[in-house]
C-alpha cells in the first residue's frame, strides 16, 4: 500500500507538472486564468441548467431529461478516456521498462498509471452529475443518506469504464501494430473516428417518429430541451440505462446491492486481465527490432519486395527547402497517432456531419430546424446552419498548437540548419491548411450540391471554414511560440495536456462559436451579409497576427 501511495504521488506530480510550472511563472499565470475561465463556464452551465429545470419543478423531468443523459455521457466519456488515454499509458509508456526493474508488482504500477485517468474522469463526472442530482434531491426532499450514496456512486462510476477502456485501448493499439500496410495507415484513423462515429450514432441511431413539422418557429430553451429529450428516449440502450439510473437514485435495494457488488468484482477481473496483457506485451518486447523493420516497410510502401529488387538503395531526389520541410511535417503528422487523432477530430466530425446530412437528411434536418427555431432564423437562411456547423467543427482542428513543441530535444539541431523563421512557420501552417482546406472544400461542394445552396451561400461555405481554419492555425502557432515545451517524455504531454493545446482549443471554440452565436442572436435578419463581414474581420485578424508571428525568432 505504501508503495502504491508513493507511485500515485509520483504519477500525480508527473501529470500536474507542478515542478515545471513553478519554474515558469508565465505558464502558471495562464494556467490559473484558464482554470478561472473553466470555473466561470461551469458556473454559467449550472445556472443555465437550474434556470431551465427549476421552472418545471418536476423530479421525473429532471431525472429523465437531465440526470440520465448526464450519466450516459459520463459513461461514454469514461470509456473513451480509458481507450484513448489509459490504453496509451498501458501500451506505450516509455518508462515502464525502467519501472519494471523495481521490486513492485505490475498491477500496482498499472493502478498508479490509471489512477490519473480515474481521478480526471471522477472530477468531470462529478461536475456534470452533481448539479442535476442536487436539483433532483432538493425537489424530492432527499435526506443526507441520498447525498452520501450519491457521492459514493459517483466515485465508483468511472472504475469499470476506465479499466475496460484501458484494456480495450491497449489491445487495440497492440493489434494495430501488427497489421498490414493498409491497416497500418488506418490505425491512425480508427481511434479518431470513434468519437465522431458515436456522435453520428447518437444522431442517426434514434428513430425520430414525432412530427417535427409541428415545431413552432419560436422555441424557448425549456421547449428545446424537452423536444431533444423526446428524440433521445426512443433508443433501447438508453431506455434500459435510464431504468438503472432511476433505480439507483430511488435507492432500490437490489440495484444498489448489484451495483456495489458488480463494480468491484468487474474492476478486479479487468485489472487482472490488464496485468496479464501488459506482462505478455513486455515479454515480446525483444522482437522490437524486427517489428520496426516491418513498420519501416509499411511506412515506405515503395520498399516492398518487388520494388526493393528493382530500386537502388538510395533513390534520392532533390527538393526545395520549403517542400522538404513540408514533407517532413506531413510524414511526422501521419506517423504519430496521438498527434493525428487529437488534431483531426474536428475535420473527421465535420466529414461525418456532412455525410449524415446528405445521406440521412430527414434525420438531421429536425435538429437543424430545432436550432433554427430556437435562434429565430428565417426559413430561407436555415441552410446557413450547415455551413456554421462545418465551420465550428473545422475550427476545432488545429495542428499548429503542438508544432513547435513536437520538435522536442531536436530543436537545437533544427536551429543549426539554415532555415529562416518564415520557412519554419510556413511549413507548419502549410500542413494545417493542406488538411483543412481540401476537406472543407469537398464538404461544402457536397453540401451545396445535395442541399441546393444558392451561389452566395455556396461561396460562404468555402470562405467561412477556410478563414476560421487560418485563424485557428495562426493562433495555435502563436500559443506554441509563447509556451513551448521541448522537455516532454511522451507526445501526449504536448498534444493533450499542454497550455497551447487547451488555449488554442478554447480560442478556436470561442472565436467560431462565439462569433456565430453573436450572428445568430443579434443579426439573424441579415445573416448572410453579416457572415461575410465576419469572414472579412476574421481574415484580417489572421493576416495581422501572421505578420507579427513571422517576426518571432523561434529558429
Amino acid at each position, binding site marked *: 500500500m505504501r508503495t502504491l501511495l508513493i507511485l500515485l504521488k509520483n504519477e500525480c506530480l508527473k501529470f500536474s507538472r507542478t515542478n515545471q510550472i513553478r519554474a515558469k511563472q508565465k505558464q502558471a499565470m495562464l494556467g490559473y486564468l484558464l482554470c478561472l475561465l473553466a470555473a466561470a463556464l461551469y458556473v454559467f452551465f449550472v445556472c443555465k441548467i437550474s434556470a431551465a429545470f427549476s421552472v418545471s419543478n418536476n423530479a421525473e423531468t429532471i431525472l429523465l431529461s437531465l440526470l440520465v443523459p448526464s450519466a450516459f455521457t459520463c459513461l461514454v466519456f469514461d470509456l473513451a478516456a480509458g481507450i484513448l488515454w489509459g490504453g496509451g499509458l498501458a501500451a506505450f509508456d516509455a518508462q515502464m521498462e525502467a519501472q519494471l526493474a523495481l521490486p513492485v508488482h505490475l498491477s500496482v504500477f498499472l493502478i498508479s498509471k490509471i489512477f490519473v485517468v480515474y481521478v480526471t474522469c471522477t472530477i468531470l463526472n462529478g461536475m456534470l452529475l452533481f448539479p442535476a442530482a442536487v436539483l433532483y434531491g432538493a425537489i424530492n426532499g432527499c435526506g443526507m443518506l441520498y447525498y452520501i450514496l450519491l457521492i459514493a456512486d459517483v466515485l465508483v462510476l468511472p472504475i469499470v469504464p476506465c479499466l475496460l477502456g484501458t484494456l480495450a485501448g491497449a489491445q487495440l493499439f497492440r493489434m494495430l501494430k501488427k497489421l498490414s500496410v493498409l491497416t497500418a495507415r488506418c490505425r491512425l484513423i480508427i481511434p479518431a473516428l470513434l468519437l465522431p462515429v458515436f456522435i453520428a450514432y447518437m444522431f442517426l441511431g434514434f428513430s425520430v417518429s414525432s412530427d417535427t413539422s409541428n415545431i413552432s418557429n419560436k422555441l424557448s430553451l425549456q421547449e428545446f430541451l424537452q423536444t431533444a429529450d423526446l428524440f433521445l428516449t426512443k433508443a433501447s440502450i438508453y431506455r434500459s440505462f435510464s431504468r438503472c439510473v432511476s433505480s439507483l437514485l430511488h435507492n432500490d435495494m437490489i440495484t444498489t446491492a448489484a451495483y456495489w457488488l458488480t463494480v468491484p468484482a468487474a474492476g478486479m477481473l479487468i485489472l487482472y486481465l490488464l496485468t496479464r496483457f501488459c506482462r505478455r506485451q513486455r515479454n515480446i518486447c525483444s522482437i*522490437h527490432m524486427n517489428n520496426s523493420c516491418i*513498420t*519501416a516497410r509499411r511506412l515506405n510502401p515503395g520498399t516492398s519486395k518487388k520494388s526493393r529488387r528493382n530500386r537502388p538503395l538510395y533513390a*534520392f531526389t532533390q527538393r526545395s*527547402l520549403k517542400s*522538404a520541410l513540408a514533407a517532413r511535417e506531413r510524414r511526422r503528422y501521419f506517423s504519430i497517432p496521438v498527434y493525428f487523432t487529437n488534431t483531426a477530430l474536428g475535420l473527421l466530425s465535420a466529414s461525418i456531419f456532412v455525410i449524415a446530412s446528405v445521406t440521412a437528411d430527414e434525420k438531421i434536418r429536425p435538429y437543424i430546424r430545432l436550432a433554427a427555431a430556437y435562434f429565430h432564423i428565417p426559413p430561407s437562411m436555415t441552410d446557413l446552419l450547415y455551413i456554421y456547423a462545418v465551420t465550428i467543427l473545422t475550427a476545432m482542428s488545429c495542428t499548429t498548437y503542438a508544432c513547435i513543441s513536437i520538435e522536442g530535444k531536436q530543436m537545437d539541431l533544427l536551429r543549426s540548419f*539554415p*532555415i529562416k523563421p518564415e520557412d519554419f512557420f510556413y511549413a507548419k501552417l502549410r500542413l494545417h491548411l493542406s488538411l483543412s482546406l481540401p476537406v472543407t472544400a469537398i464538404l461544402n461542394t457536397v453540401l451545396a450540391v445535395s442541399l441546393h445552396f444558392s451561389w452566395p451561400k455556396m461561396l460562404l461555405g468555402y470562405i467561412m471554414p477556410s478563414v476560421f481554419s487560418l485563424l485557428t492555425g495562426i493562433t495555435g502557432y502563436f500559443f506554441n511560440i509563447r509556451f513551448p515545451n521541448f522537455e516532454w517524455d511522451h507526445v501526449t504531454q504536448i498534444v493533450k495536456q499542454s497550455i497551447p493545446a487547451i488555449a488554442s482549443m478554447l480560442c478556436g471554440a470561442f472565436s467560431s462559436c462565439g462569433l456565430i452565436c453573436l450572428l445568430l442572436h443579434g443579426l439573424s435578419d441579415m445573416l448572410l451579409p453579416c457572415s461575410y463581414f465576419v469572414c472579412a474581420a476574421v481574415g484580417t485578424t489572421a493576416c495581422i497576427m501572421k505578420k507579427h508571428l513571422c517576426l518571432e525568432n523561434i529558429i
Partner: protein
Amino acid sequence: MLEVKNLTKSYGAKKAVQNLSFTIQDGDIMGFVGRNGAGKTTTLKSCLGIITIDSGEIYLDGVSIRQNPAACKKHMAYVPDNPQLDEYMTGTQYLNFICDIYEVSSQNRMQSIQRLSHAFRMEEHLKHLISSYSHGMKQKLALIAAFSHTPRLLILDEPFVGLDPEAFLILKKQMQLLCAQGSSVLFSSHILDVVEKICSTITILKNGSAVYTGSAHNLMGEKGLDEIFMEVNEDDENTAYSFEK
C-alpha cells in the same frame, strides 16, 4: 575561417562564457576541453547561432553569425551530444531531408551518402526506422548527415560518446579527410587522448574563460594533455605559471 571575438553569454546571473576569443583556420581541427559546466556546449551553440549571445562577435568566413545566421549555417553542420533525430523517418528519409535542407544535388548526395554509410557500416540500417536504432546508430546517422553536405565548419559536441571502437576510428578518419578538403572541425570532448592525437589546435576552458587557446604542439611540449588538464583544474596559480612558460 571561424573567428570568435569577446564572446560572452550568461544564463540569468550565471556567466557561462566570458570574453572568449579564438580563431580556427582552414583545415584546423580544434578540440574544446574543460570540466562539466565550463561552457563548452554554450560556446559551440553560440558559434552555430543556436543561442543568442550577450556580447561579442562570431564570424564565419567574414560573415557575422548574428547578422546573417542562415547564410552562415548553410556552411556549417552540427552533431549534438545526444542526437534526437526524427524517429518517425527511416535513415534514408532523414538523410534525404538533411540534403534537401542544405540543397545538395541528387548526384552529390547519392555519392556522399553511399560512401559515408559504407564507411560507418550503416548501409543495411538506413532503410529501417530511426526509432529502432541504438544510441550509437543514431550517433552514426547524425554524423553521416553532418558529413553528407561537406560543410566548411563541422561542429561536434562529444562526438565519440556511444560509438563502437570501429566507428571511433572511422570518425577520426572522416574528420581528417574533411579537413584535407579545406574545411575545419570544432569539437568538444572529455577523451583527452583523442584530442591530443587529432587536434591541431586546442582550447582549454575553465569557468567560461579560455585558459589556453592555440597550437596543440605548443601547449603540450613534453607533457600529456591529461597532465595539463589536471594542473589547470587543480591550481589556478600553477596553471598560469605553466602557460607563461
